[in-house]
């Protein structure tokens, strides 16, 4: 569901790159100062690989099929590292499959990375407040999708008012995906909590 080359205006693309580069730089710098990068790099890479593969799965609903975004789940599992992970994933997707585009890697990174970060914050906050993790998973999964959809719509409208109707349609089209990802994310979180709880950012420092 990333946006391809040639659609968005110069201003939107440029803003996207600027935000993406700044955020990535801050996050990586922060990570370098707190963790051993030798340990973090293989970790992020392999997890990104796992998400990359999982997002190639198509779920058929009626006559069409949707492929998964997994923004919310990525945030819940990787924490703030979800943002650079998304950059790597999107770059590979553009390079290997020509999904999305090359000029839009920055804006796509923002569009999917920020919902991932929000999902992470909500998950952590909610868990500390004692909300059931599976419910939180459902919320974060659903939120990740719909926020990405709304961001996408906003960017289209910013590019030109020609896109208004299409933007609305895109948000509506995201609703089934939102439900699907909510259920999947809820079940992944429940599973991980049972089998390998230390993988979730329950009380991990950022």
């Amino acid at each position, binding site marked *: 569901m990333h946006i391809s080359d040639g659609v968005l205006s110069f201003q939107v693309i440029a803003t996207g790159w600027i935000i993406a580069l700044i955020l990535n730089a801050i996050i990586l710098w922060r990570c370098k100062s707190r963790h051993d990068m030798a340990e973090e790099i293989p970790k992020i890479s392999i997890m990104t690989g796992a998400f990359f593969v999982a997002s190639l799965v198509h779920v058929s609903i009626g006559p069409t099929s949707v492929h998964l975004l997994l923004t919310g789940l990525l945030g819940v599992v990787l924490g703030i590292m979800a943002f650079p992970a998304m950059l790597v994933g999107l770059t590979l997707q553009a390079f290997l499959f020509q999904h999305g585009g090359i000029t839009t890697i920055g804006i796509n990174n923002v569009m999917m990375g920020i919902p991932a970060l929000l999902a992470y914050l909500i998950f952590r906050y909610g868990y500390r407040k004692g909300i059931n993790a599976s419910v939180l998973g459902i919320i974060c999964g659903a939120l990740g999708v719909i926020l990405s959809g709304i961001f996408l719509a906003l960017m289209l409208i910013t590019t030109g008012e020609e896109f208004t109707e299409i933007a609305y349609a895109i948000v509506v089209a995201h609703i089934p995906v939102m439900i699907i990802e909510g259920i999947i994310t809820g079940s992944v979180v429940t599973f991980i909590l*049972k*089998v*390998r709880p230390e993988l979730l950012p329950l009380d991990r420092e950022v």
Partner: protein
Amino acid sequence: MVEAIKVEDLNYSYSDGTKALEDIGLTIYEGEKVVVVGPNGAGKTTFFLHLNGTIKNPQGDVRVFGKRISDMKIEDRIHQVGVVFQDPDDQLFMPTVFDDVAFGPINMGLDEEEVEKRVNKALSKVGLEGFEKKVSHNLSYGQKKRVALAAVLSMEPKVLVLDEPTANLDPKSRADFISLISDLNERDGITTIIAMHDVNALPTLADRVYVLNKRIVAEGSPRDIFSDWSLLKDNSLEAPDVFKLFKVLNCFGYSSDDLPLSFDEAVEVLTRTIEGTEGHIHLHIHEHTHKEISHVMDSYNHHRNGKK
């Protein structure tokens, strides 16, 4: 005899063009235990994918108890053939052991009570009663292998297909697993088809052996296969150590037509032969002994000479 599995003119190529199977034809009868051997990349795993319906439209004819596998309903198919893959981690994806073992029966549409009965039965078959609540991922490797087997046994298949059942197991778990599988064959009458590299364990698990190397290269009893050293050489195989040793004893004048393949059989054969020859056997060096021995060594140790 009832034909459990019948395959004719089966071909398969992966999407990248790798030809994995060529003109495979074989028949396995009900109650048999068959082992498929062949080098790495011979197509054993690919062949097994045809038996469980993963490959949906086989280029060739694959029949299970007379029915084409592509025409069978899923529920029927999994009741006929159960496949246990090599890596148990690939097969355990549910939170608890119970859920994993119940997965197949639930997909078969059985009712709750029946599902539970099956899970208990399958777990007790593999010796893991009381493990229902455990998290599969935290078990030892050998235990995971058993759970993976139980998860297939719970569907009560008539044919059990196992890919490398003994790999990575410690010697005790290996021995346990081998006796578990032969029990399933001998006591419960399940037809077993096994792919493996472990030639020392093979004789216990095989009435009949197929050598696969893209095509079916040979078929026969373990003894036939292991006696044909050029076949072994061409297909990167070896004979069991016990068998090779008796070949050498033969050179020293021990004469017996049925050379044993495993330790247990060796003890039996030795006892029988010695009793049969009025209580003793002579081993001695005669004129040709050395030549014969080096011939045996050369034939069977072919792999060792390659790189030196």
